């Protein structure tokens, strides 16, 4: 019973990238928050999981270095994959004028003023998520490396640069965590279109009917070019789907735990 009801959205390599990003992001979030909140009992128990205040720093640095290498690998990967001729086309993640139009039309639709926009392959919010990570990781990586190796760093910049780097690192990290734990989680898990979870990033494919509904421009484009058939795949077996759900929800639980714990304990932050 392998009916081809789903359309392929992500390659295995892209899914692996996303999986590693989840794992390293949550590790960085937990170890970083554990240190920021070390004066509260919540922060202490969080730090305990990783072996204490100092161990958190060590883990944070090595996972951070991993993320920097990961970013470089991603850039190399992208360079090999880019179709330079279609860079401004709908398959590209580069922002287009249509994204701005879509954004306002989407809001109009929320308010009941206009029709739902016909999204193509990538919605403007997906492009935003991608580019947020794309400049967030180098920014966090650069400021993080400066602070991880301050003696080397201060050979190329004055020591007070570390004061500045620390604050950039903090605010960017808080922005990233709030964005992922509130907005990203809501869009891919809670909104009705995707509830309980959008499996596309794990399974690699999305339900064709749902996609036709949300991204009609993409499906129409594929149909016109006669490429739709080749993109259809069958649903993953139930066992694998169960793993996707368990893993996805585990990540959500960790994220919400960090979010709520962080908000509740914010009076105890030692900046």
């Amino acid at each position, binding site marked *: 019973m392998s009916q081809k009801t789903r359309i392929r959205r992500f390659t295995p390599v892209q899914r692996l990238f996303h999986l590693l990003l989840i794992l390293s992001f949550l590790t960085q979030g937990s170890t970083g928050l554990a240190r920021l909140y*070390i004066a509260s009992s919540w922060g202490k128990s969080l730090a305990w999981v990783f072996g204490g205040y100092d161990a958190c720093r060590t883990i944070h640095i090595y996972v951070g270095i991993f993320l920097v290498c990961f970013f470089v690998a991603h850039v190399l990967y992208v360079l090999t994959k880019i179709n330079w001729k279609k860079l401004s086309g709908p398959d590209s993640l580069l922002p287009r004028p249509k994204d701005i139009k879509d954004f306002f039309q989407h*809001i109009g639709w929320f308010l009941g003023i206009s029709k739902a926009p016909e999204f193509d392959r990538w919605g403007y919010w997906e492009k935003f998520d991608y580019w947020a990570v794309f400049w967030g990781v180098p920014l966090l990586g650069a400021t993080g490396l400066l602070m991880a190796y*301050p003696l080397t760093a201060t050979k190329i910049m004055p020591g007070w640069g570390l*004061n*500045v780097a620390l604050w*950039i690192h903090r*605010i960017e990290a808080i922005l990233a965590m709030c*964005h992922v734990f509130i907005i990203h989680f809501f869009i891919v898990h809670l*909104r009705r279109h995707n509830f309980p979870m959008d499996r596309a990033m794990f399974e690699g494919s999305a339900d064709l009917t749902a996609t036709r509904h949300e991204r009609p421009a993409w499906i129409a484009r594929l149909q016109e070019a006669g490429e739709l058939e080749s993109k259809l795949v069958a649903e993953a077996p139930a066992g694998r789907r169960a793993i996707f759900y368990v893993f996805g929800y585990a990540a959500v639980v960790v994220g919400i735990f960090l979010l709520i714990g962080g908000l509740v304990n914010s009076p105890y932050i*030692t900046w």
Partner: protein
Amino acid sequence: MIGTKRVRWVIPCLAAIFLVTEVILPTLVSAQEEVASYIRRYKDREASTGFYEQYEVKPRRMAPLVEVPGVTRGIFPYSPSAAKVRIRTRLADSHWGIKFYERRRCEECHIRETRDIHTTRANLTCRQCHGGEPIASLGHYYSPFNPIRKHAYVCAKCHQGANASYASYIVHSPNPALASTRQAFPVLFYVFWFMVILAGGTFVVFLPHTALWGARELFVKKEKAEGESKD
């Protein structure tokens, strides 16, 4: 049976031993270690008075009691007859003449300096950097905080290999949000507010956006068979 004569000797002997131990030997304590913090134990490196958590300033001979109410910094009249110079930032003992200095703790007078990583997280005591009495003003030529030797005399005690550039790190980092930081540390001030506005802007747009989106989708008919009209 022990003779009564011997018993009469034992008691004075014990008393003498007790007296000697009490007077000459140090008091018995269960542990000699001084535990400073739940994160780190750094007080073992400190130039210490030994009087933890009560007062940090070593009792010493009184300096002349000179003070003008309300004036804590800069030039103030030393006495009606004397020269009017007392620039605190150039003194060999920055607390010279400050009343009741001896029996108080640093944070009672310098609150702002307690709110940074070295104190709140690493739990250092002020004296691990500022040293024993007298605490020289930062601008005094022989102060360990003079930039020509700060890295070696202060930072390198803990940060092995610290160079002069490293020592320009602002240990008592000001609160970046405050307007006063705009003068004291403008780069930090502007970078901070730039980042805050960036982060705030993202949420001002995307939080309502996401909430509205979630609400709107509750009113969408779940998709039907293929080709049916949208919404």
